[in-house]
């Protein structure tokens, strides 16, 4: 059994909702929540199942509802029916109290004007993908009017097959509504839940180690709460209330952690919070700890039998937090090329690998790029090569450069316009005569700021090491840019 209440003009939405929630925990706010000012927003549907044992029959419930509303200065219409649709149509049509016996919804609604369906149009969509219902002045509303239909009973009486043949599935849906049938179950409005835990400490704590135990104690019930609701934490807030100093105001140390994916594991959250607090410690002793999370729908993971699983986001988050604490925030991540001619230009991006299942479909196992090794001769321990072959050639291999992030100064003796000997003062780096060289290649750029303008040479020293040298054209100084390795 469902009831619909409809507030008169000027009714407070909150007061109306409070009245509804006093009678039933399952209350549906009808209409678009963005349209609180519109008439739709002043309508609520209640699930009244079981209330007859408290208040008596349906009429008693309706009278009690009106009395409670009147006590709060509200004038409401009440309709009670076996279906939500019937209750809603009736409450819009008739003032006061309307009771429809379960099973007689179609008969009770038969005399109501067809235009009521239009008012219900966009406030109740039977399925997420369905089109809005026609309003009385819409094209389909005009069609129904042209057919001579004036009441819901007229529409309900039409043969369903013929209606579907002419208007499609939408026609069938309208007819069901006209008969007072529900197309979807009641979706109760869930009050906003707070995911927060706090603890007042008997004795202030100053170190992070005892704080770890406090955080663990707070985060474990929070994890259970999130798990019950199928949620994960998108943002973790840690609020530390510091001991009030004499004469001063009480300070609060606030930290918020944006998590890369929804996480609810208490140990992971505690580790992340502690690592963050290590790098941003509170200024004094703590006597109250509050932990809160911004909830978001939990993660659903589908593992694959075909590819190696990636580390879980919890593991990756913890790893990255530990690495950033150890190496520095900007020194861990994935490299990315940037659109620049400058040698060695790159940028760091967060390390967030995508699962291979998303990248590839079925060709993951049959790797395209890894060539199969040639046959192996088990006796000699060598690959089976054709007779007389001494070299195996691998084509299209990129020779890697080991780049000095800060170019190493060098002294270069130039003979006949090309480098002949290089001397490097840095310990561990060999200099010597140059046996082969190629160049120069001139590059320049960023002239409007700290740019570069240089001549590059690739040189091989007598010892075998191959360097990339450059001469800065403005200062005439030589540097080692990197080692080809």
């Amino acid at each position: 059994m469902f009831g619909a209440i409809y507030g008169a003009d000027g009714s407070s939405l909150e007061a109306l909702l409070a009245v509804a929630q006093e009678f039933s925990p399952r209350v549906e706010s009808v209409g678009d929540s963005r349209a609180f000012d519109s008439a739709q927003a002043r309508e609520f549907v209640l699930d009244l199942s079981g209330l007859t044992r408290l208040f008596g029959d349906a009429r008693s419930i309706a009278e009690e509802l009106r009395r409670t509303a009147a006590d709060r200065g509200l004038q409401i219409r009440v309709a009670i029916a076996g279906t939500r649709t019937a209750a809603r149509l009736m409450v819009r049509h008739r003032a006061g109290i309307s009771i429809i016996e379960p099973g007689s919804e179609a008969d009770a609604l038969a005399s109501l004007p067809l235009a009521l369906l239009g008012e219900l149009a966009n406030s109740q969509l039977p399925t997420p993908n369905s089109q809005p219902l026609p309003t009385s002045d819409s094209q389909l509303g005009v069609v129904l009017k042209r057919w001579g239909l004036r009441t819901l009973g007229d529409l309900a009486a039409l043969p369903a097959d013929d209606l579907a043949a002419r208007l499609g599935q939408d026609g069938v849906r309208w007819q069901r509504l006209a008969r007072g049938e529900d197309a979807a179950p009641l979706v109760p409005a869930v009050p906003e839940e707070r995911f927060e835990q706090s603890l007042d400490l008997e004795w202030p704590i100053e170190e992070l180690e005892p704080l770890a135990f406090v955080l663990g104690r707070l985060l474990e019930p929070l994890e259970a709460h999130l798990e019950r609701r199928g949620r994960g934490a998108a943002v973790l807030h840690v609020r530390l209330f510091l001991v009030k100093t004499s004469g001063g105001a009480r300070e609060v140390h606030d930290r918020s952690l944006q998590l890369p994916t929804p996480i609810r594991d208490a140990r992971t959250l505690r580790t992340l919070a502690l690592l963050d607090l290590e790098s941003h410690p509170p200024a004094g002793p703590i006597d109250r700890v509050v932990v809160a999370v911004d909830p978001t729908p939990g993660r659903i993971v589908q593992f694959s039998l075909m590819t190696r699983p990636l580390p879980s986001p919890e593991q990756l988050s913890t790893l990255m937090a530990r690495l950033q604490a150890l190496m520095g925030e900007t020194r861990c991540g994935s490299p990315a090329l940037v659109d620049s001619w400058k040698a060695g230009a790159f940028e760091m991006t967060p390390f967030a690998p995508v699962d291979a299942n998303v990248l590839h479909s079925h060709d993951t196992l049959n790797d395209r790029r890894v060539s199969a090794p040639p046959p192996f001769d088990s006796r000699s321990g060598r690959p089976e090569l054709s007779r007389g072959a001494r070299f195996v050639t691998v084509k299209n291999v990129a020779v890697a450069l080991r780049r000095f992030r800060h170019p190493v100064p060098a002294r270069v003796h130039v003979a006949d316009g090309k480098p002949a000997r290089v001397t490097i003062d840095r310990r561990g780096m060999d200099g010597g005569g140059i046996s082969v060289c190629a160049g120069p290649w001139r590059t320049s750029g960023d002239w409007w700021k700290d740019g570069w303008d240089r001549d590059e040479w690739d040189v091989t020293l007598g010892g075998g090491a191959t360097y990339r040298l450059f001469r800065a054209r403005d200062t005439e100084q030589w540097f080692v840019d990197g080692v080809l390795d």
Partner: protein
Amino acid sequence: MANHALAAVESALRDRKLDRTLTTALAPLERMDPSALVPMDVAALDACLRGGLPRGQLSELAGPRSSGRMTLLLRMMAAATARGEIVALMDTLDRLDVASAAAAGVDLSRLLWIRGQDSAPADRALDRALKALNLVLQAGGFGVVALDLADVPLAAIRQIPFNTWMRVQRVIEGSDTACVLITSEPLARSAGGLTVTLAGRPTWTGTSDRGRRLSGVDLRARVVSPRKRIDGEVAIGALTVDVTDRDAPIARQR
């Protein structure tokens, strides 16, 4: 008779759970599961390694400057990322050239790059890199984890306690991670790992200074394996890495 005696000794050791010290307790090479290996994606070298570097073991690529260590490592990482795995590089002295990695085919979004500092004292940079290596290995899930010690002074490397490498081995034992050290000389291979010693010689094309270009590196690799399981004393022969596309590898505009 001798076989009976050997079997009895092995059985006794196995009962006391000391069979890990037995050479024969290692899996036969012919029956090595391909999924337990990380190919280098250089066919001749993979054939010599019987498929690649073993997972769950500490291996090393050793050689002097310009011997092709980084080229081979990036090629191995490119193959791993192409298979959908993620890889990590502990870059002790911040030497990675991102353009080279991209040109080698490494999927950069699947590469975790941990950059040390060139300006920091070598021992401190090394200490941080080892701690970072430990964190990455303990997190698990990486196909290849490399520690670049190539330019770290040997004096600093020799100060590392030897049990450091044993701890590393204990962390990755049984995992799917192949840990690779890039060093200037053989350093710390685990019992089941491999050492690939490299020697390289640059190859050039063209005769004039202006027309000459670096076309590649001739590599010679020598594999050292535990108890000569992979014929460790035999060099695999000459391996030529030939660069036919001259512009792409070094990715410079000239």
